[in-house]
């Protein structure tokens, strides 16, 4: 497929000092090792969020985000694929934070070169609030699976990705 040649960024989000919140960073670090020779894919880690993410994703055609999530409704290590259209909804109720959906919508509104495909993989975590540099055991075990999923996502672009051409705003 033509999209295989598209410029892709794999972006790991998280905080490496907050125990399980580091999962996105750990996973993309492993992905970076596996894809070291692939010039079509850039892999980055960041502890930033909100608007700062624009600086990372502008200019890429595809974005794969790996982050943590805490729904409390499934065991740690469960992998959620979030629908970018769901996150695209703009809310005015965030006191501090511009979500990924808002960030994408903003970039499109400003006419920046925004990705046409956005996939969001979020790993259920047990403890993202305690300072620590080790993942909890369940999460450590989940790392290879998540890495595999991310690699698969890179190799097989989403069919009919709703977030793509339509634009949000």
């Amino acid at each position: 497929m033509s999209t295989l040649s598209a410029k892709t960024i794999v972006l790991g989000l998280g905080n490496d000092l907050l125990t399980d919140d580091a999962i996105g960073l750990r996973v993309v670090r492993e992905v970076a090792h596996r894809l070291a020779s692939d010039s079509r894919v850039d892999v980055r880690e960041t502890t930033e969020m909100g608007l700062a993410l624009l600086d990372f994703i502008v200019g890429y055609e595809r974005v794969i985000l790996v982050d943590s999530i805490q729904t409390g409704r499934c065991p740690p290590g469960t992998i959620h694929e979030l629908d970018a259209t769901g996150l695209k909804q703009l809310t005015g109720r965030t006191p501090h934070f511009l979500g990924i959906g808002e960030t994408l919508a903003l970039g499109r509104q400003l006419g920046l070169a925004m990705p046409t495909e956005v996939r969001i993989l979020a790993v259920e975590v047990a403890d993202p609030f305690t300072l620590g540099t080790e993942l909890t055991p369940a999460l450590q075990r989940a790392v290879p699976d998540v890495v595999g999923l991310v690699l698969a996502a890179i190799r097989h672009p989403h069919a009919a990705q709703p977030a793509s051409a339509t634009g949000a705003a």
Partner: protein
Amino acid sequence: MQQAVKDTFNQGAARANAAYQMGRRRFTVDPITRLEGHGKIDIYLDEKGDVERAYMQVPELRGFEVFSLGRPAEDMPQITSRICGVCPTAHHMAATKCLDDLYQVEPTSAGRKIRELVYNTFMLEDHALHFFVLGGPDFVVGPEAPPAERNIVGVIGKVGLEAGKKVIGTRKRLRELITYFGGKVVHPVLGLPGGVSKALDPADLPKFQQLAKDGVEFAEWTLQVFKDIVLKNPDYVKMITSDAFTHKTCYMGTVDEQNRVNFYDGKLRVVDCTGKEIYKFHPRQYREFVAEHVEPWSYMKFTFLKPRGWNGFVEGPESSIYAVAPLARLNAADGMATPKAQAAYEEFYQILGGKPVHHTLATHWARVIEMIQAAETMEKLLNDPEITSPDVRRVPTAVPKEGIGVVEAPRGTLFHHYQTDERGCITMANMIVATANNASRIAMSVERAAKALIKGGKVTEGLLNKVEMAFRAYDPCLGCATHSLPGHLPLRVKIYDHHRQLVEELRQD
């Protein structure tokens, strides 16, 4: 609500209360509440069904002290700036100043100026982000606008696409300056005891001078946007000055030798609800003036003015509650340190009826005035010939023992306090963050909104929105809470009757 859910919750609450009664001073959150997400408000009703008390809680960042123990103190500017992706530069700078104090070393003059330059750049960038992206939607788009429009895209719709590009573009350039010195915005590696790690190359000076000049224009333009959209709308002004968003408390902020606002350094000054100075102290004395109060129902610690003692959540002349952040800084000072900001400051008090201003929502306006000071300070520093001096660090020689470092974070006064052994390894680490300093007043704001909207056990529609407007002005720092997806702050309100039984639950997520 289903009876089973209610029962489970009440059993959990009873267990938690019992545990507290056993004498734990530090309240550990019961796992039930932990799972319940981020912004949590508990409202307690009296026998008539009116609000007796309402509280807001946010997740606690755990283990900071334990994590720090035994680590070299020099790691603290990196560790603390990495705890939270929201105000990394503030933590980095407070920790760096703490190291100066720990090693009893004054930074060189050029080193200090570079710190101030980076810090003011950060203040401008962070305040701009808040004004346009986070707080702005309430005003620029309007509090009555549908939620789907109350966001940054709505703001751009109102101020124009070009203006939107200006906001994003300026912010990016400001961050480039921070990155130039610190390597990264979130993991800055700039501050060292006695100075900084990088000097400003004279070849790079012109572009930053241009940035500062543009920054001043940008800040003045932002003030104009505020005036055009907010001040020219009588409904907004009425809301800002309404009782629902007014609290007569004390205020704290850092001031320079002329009692003008300073973000980076100075003495801490506290004024009472009439605007009279009641305390002024060196950061090293903070424990004589700031104490933390613990309530049985919350793991949050509520700071108060120690000499006055804890007088409860009361306002007026007896209040020992103080606020921090932009409005508090303006109230606690006699003026701004730069001319354009000073003019804006005078206009602010003239329009709002003199000092101090107690209207929480005026914090948004105060924030814009601080943007002007930050930009003007950048300009001043970049036109100072010493800014390109290579003499940016003095190497410390003293044996470390104890250090205290304080800065004004965008969200208010931030305290760092470490003790070490003679090798400089941490034996005690404590932080009081801006949101903790504001916790009591935030709690009062939440309660005010709850009291206005719940009568006789009946909950008026719009409770959540009104409560949110109240706490958004403080820009409470929930960095550790807001990182994980879905990326917004779920707000949950629980209402209990006078038997402390859960009767209603509202959520917005």
